[in-house]
């Protein structure tokens, strides 16, 4: 897909995120909007997947380690054709397939249930190991939050991915710099992220996580033969709440739904309607 087309899809994903969270009256818009561009690239350009056959043998797999960004994942999946877009407004409602955090037993196409931070990347490492054992060319992708890196289990997983030479694993850190209680740097410093992963034996690519060209190129570089034998992490510099002026760079929009007025304004800014 052309860069411009991908940008168009990302805009739709952002509109969907607002619709979902507005309808649910709860959820996590900030961290969903920050990873919307990366998510769009994965589902529309990078991954070898088939929405009509979500369990297809040999497919690439995605694990949302920062499970609270479920609205972004559901939006990308719906836009890609995994389920009807109308279903997006069922987010977090009783009986829905779109649980507050991803539940693989509810929705076909979800590869893992996540939400408890730090666990998704471990599961992704397990999936990458399984692909290696099966001599499959499938690649495993995961998105982590930067606050999530405070979980010790992330580093256990990082160590194991490098130890087992999982070059079929590509992680993205959605580095928006904020978490529930404020700035990463104030709550618990995670920087320098790139150096940490380098020290753990990973191939590290740093990009602007809202520049579609850079995103697509980073995923392609991760597959480059020069990186064989090493997992790749893409450290994506992002803005929490990206695309909605009053949500941008505000930790307060980590886990809060917009009211009627705010939702309307957000949709106007994103070029859509509720």
């Amino acid at each position: 897909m052309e860069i411009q087309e991908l940008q168009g899809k990302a805009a739709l994903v952002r509109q969907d995120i607002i619709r979902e969270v507005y309808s649910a009256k709860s959820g996590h818009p900030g961290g969903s909007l920050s990873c919307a561009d990366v998510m769009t690239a994965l589902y529309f350009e990078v991954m070898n997947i088939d929405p009509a056959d979500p369990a297809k043998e040999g497919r690439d797999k995605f694990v949302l380690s920062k499970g609270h960004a479920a609205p972004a994942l559901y939006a990308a999946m719906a836009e890609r054709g995994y389920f009807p877009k109308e279903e997006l407004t069922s987010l977090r409602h009783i009986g829905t397939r779109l649980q507050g955090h991803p539940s693989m037993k509810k929705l076909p196409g979800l590869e893992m249930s996540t939400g408890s931070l730090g666990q998704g990347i471990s599961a992704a490492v397990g999936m990458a190991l399984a692909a290696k054992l099966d001599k499959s060319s499938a690649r495993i992708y995961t998105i982590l939050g930067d606050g999530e890196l405070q979980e010790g289990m992330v580093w256990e997983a990082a160590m194991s991915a490098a130890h087992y030479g999982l070059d079929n694993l590509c992680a993205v850190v959605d580095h928006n710099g904020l978490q529930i209680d404020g700035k990463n740097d104030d709550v618990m410093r995670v920087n320098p992220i790139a150096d940490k992963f380098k020290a753990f034996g990973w191939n590290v690519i740093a990009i602007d996580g809202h520049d579609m060209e850079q995103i697509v190129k980073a995923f392609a570089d991760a597959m480059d033969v020069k990186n064989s034998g090493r997992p790749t992490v893409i450290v994506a510099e992002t803005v929490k709440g990206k695309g909605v002026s009053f949500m941008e760079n505000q930790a307060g929009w980590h886990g809060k739904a917009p009211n009627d007025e705010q939702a309307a304004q957000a949709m106007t800014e994103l070029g859509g309607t509720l």
Partner: protein
Amino acid sequence: MAEKIATRASYGKALTELGAENQNIIVMDADLSGSTQTKKFADKFPERFINAGIAECNMMGMAAGLAISGKTVFASTFAMFAAGRAYEIIRNSIGYTHANVKICATHAGLTVGEDGASHQCLEDLALMRAIPGMTVINPADDVSARKLIKAAAEFNGPCYIRLGRASVPVLYGEDQKVEIGKALKLKEGKDAVIIATGIMVDAAMQAAELLKAEGLEVGVMDMHTIKPIDEEAIVEAAKTGAIVTVEEHSVMGGLGSAVAEVVCQKAPCRMKIVGVQDTFGESGTPDALLEKYHLTAADIAEAVKSIR
């Protein structure tokens, strides 16, 4: 005197047999493969053995990923670090996804012995039993351990198997039929039934002998599956009017609680729960610990008499 074999040794043996029969089996450990006996599998099938290092949480997370990718995964470490340290990973990544991971936790209970309380897991049955969809197994001897481990490999879903460090008498013949969820009746008795699990089944048999000398006919049941528990067998036992449960585990949340849940709702009768009384263990030989924490045949016999 019956031959004595630790159920962790049974695990090592069962794994090598399973590994030869089933190419889909993956075994994981967290740097304790000599102790858990997964090394037996690792030596034979190195390409299907994954050492996670001393990182139990990540081991359980990786196990989930491997299982969700279609593998039958056996993940091992000591009970303390499996059910204890990695509890929430087991709950969310393995339980919630109903992943096909068999958590085989060795060195459970007081009989870890000299290592002391930090390594004596007395809460694992309670923790694992509370996870929806988790099968919980606690074998009594070598034969039943091997058969139950193999049975666990046959079904698709999460399973916790509790294994011990110390050698324990072999109770069953090689032809004994052992099914997950079906208690084994070792002895019939009209005056009371002792329902025991794991390595306490042998002590329960001895207790029944002690009571026989005093004129009481007491049945003994091996409740090797804590979940799903054999309700029918419990209701049957309740007809004697007295049930004593015995476990090398806290009296809270384990076998005693599971049996009491059935008894109080389906067949009320007198009950006594023999186990570790809301306390941590300590260093000592397994026998000295079992005596100090009142888990001997004499203690069980006393418990039976107290409700007869």
